[in-house]
C-alpha cells in the first residue's frame, strides 16, 4: 500500500513548526531522517503524535550510536517512529555529548519507551531525564561500564586461552 504521506509533505510540516531545531535532513533509501536539537526532541515527538494530519503515533525503537571522533556530539540517539494510519515511517536523530549525555525521557509520551530507554542507558550510559526507573535492564547489575561505548573492548578481558596476535587485540 502506498503511503498517504510523502517525505516532502512531512519535512515541510516539521519545518514550519520546528524550523530552528532542524540541523540536517537526509533521505537514505527514501527513508526520511531528520536530525534535530536534543533539547527539542521531546517536544517534536509529542507534536508528531498529536498532529492529526501526520498521526505519527507509534514508537518502533530507540537506539544510540557512539561516534568517538565526533567531538561534542559523541552520541547519536535514534528514534524510529511510525504512522500506522498513514503507513509512513520517520527517523529522528539527536546528538548529545560525552561530557553531558542527557536527553529528556519520552516515557510520558510513549510508555513503551520505558524499556527502550533503559536498554540505551544500559549500553551507552545515556541519562534520560525524567525516566521513572533508569536502571540496567539486560546486563548484570554489578557491571561498572557501558559496553557499547567504543573505548571498551568487545571481548572479555579475563579470557586467557587466546593469543592476542591471532585475534586482533
Amino acid at each position, binding site marked *: 500500500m502506498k503511503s498517504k504521506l510523502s517525505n516532502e509533505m512531512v519535512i515541510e510540516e516539521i519545518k514550519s513548526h520546528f524550523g530552528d531545531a532542524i540541523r540536517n535532513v537526509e533521505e537514505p533509501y527514501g527513508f526520511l531522517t531528520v536530525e534535530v536539537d536534543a533539547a527539542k526532541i521531546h517536544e517534536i515527538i509529542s507534536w508528531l503524535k498529536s498532529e492529526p494530519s501526520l498521526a505519527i503515533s507509534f514508537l518502533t525503537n530507540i537506539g544510540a550510536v557512539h561516534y568517538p571522533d565526533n567531538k561534542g556530539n559523541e552520541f547519536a540517539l535514534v528514534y524510529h517512529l511510525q504512522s500506522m494510519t498513514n503507513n509512513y515511517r520517520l527517523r529522528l536523530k539527536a546528538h548529545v555529548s560525552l561530557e553531558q549525555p542527557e536527553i529528556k525521557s519520552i516515557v510520558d509520551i510513549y510508555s513503551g519507551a520505558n524499556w527502550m530507554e533503559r536498554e540505551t542507558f544500559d549500553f551507552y550510559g545515556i541519562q534520560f531525564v525524567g525516566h521513572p526507573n533508569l536502571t540496567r535492564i*539486560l*546486563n*548484570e547489575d554489578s*557491571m561498572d561500564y557501558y*559496553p557499547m561505548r567504543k573505548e*571498551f*573492548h*568487545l*571481548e*572479555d578481558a*579475563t*579470557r586467557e*586461552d*587466546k593469543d592476542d596476535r591471532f*585475534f586482533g587485540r
Partner: protein
Amino acid sequence: MGKIEDLQVINGEGYQLSVLDKVVATARLNSVWPLPFATSCCGIEYMATMGSNYDLARFGMERMSFSPRQADLLIVAGTISKKLAPILKQVYEQMAEPKWVISVGACASSGGIFDTYSVLQGIDRVIPVDVYVPGCPPRPEQIIDGIMKIHEMVKHEPMRRRYSDEYKSLLNKYDIEGNEE
C-alpha cells in the same frame, strides 16, 4: 560397566562381609541423578542423549532431578551469561554432597565462540568442574563418554573425601561453604 567388578563379598551364616566404601560406591554409581542445566544447543544434544536412541536411562539415570536438593550430577549444557552465573552457583550450592559437575560443550567449558563482555568464560570461574566435554555442540556419544568418566569418579570416591582439607580448600577458592564434619 556400571558394576564394581572387584566388589568382594564374603558370605557366611547370617552375615555378609564387604567393604563399605565399595558397597556405597556401587549404589551411587548405578543411580546418579542428573540435574540438567541446559541453556542452548548443547541442551538439545543432551535431550537426544536422554532419548531412547542413546538412552542414558541404562546407567540408572532415567530420573531427571529438577530439584538441586535431590541431584548428584549437575550437567551444565550451554552458554552461561554473566548475569546467569550467580544463579548457577546457587543451584550448585543447593545440591547435597556428594555432588559432581559435568561441563558440556565449548561454551560451558570456556565461553566458546562467545568471547564477549556478557558471557562467562567457562563455568569453572564460579563452580568446580569434574569433567569437561568438548564440542560445539558435542555429539551424544561424547556426552555419554563424559558421563562414564563421572561414573569412574563415583566408583573411586572415598567416603571421607568430601570432608578432606583439599576438598574444603577447593570450595573455599570458589567462595562456597563446605561440609561441616
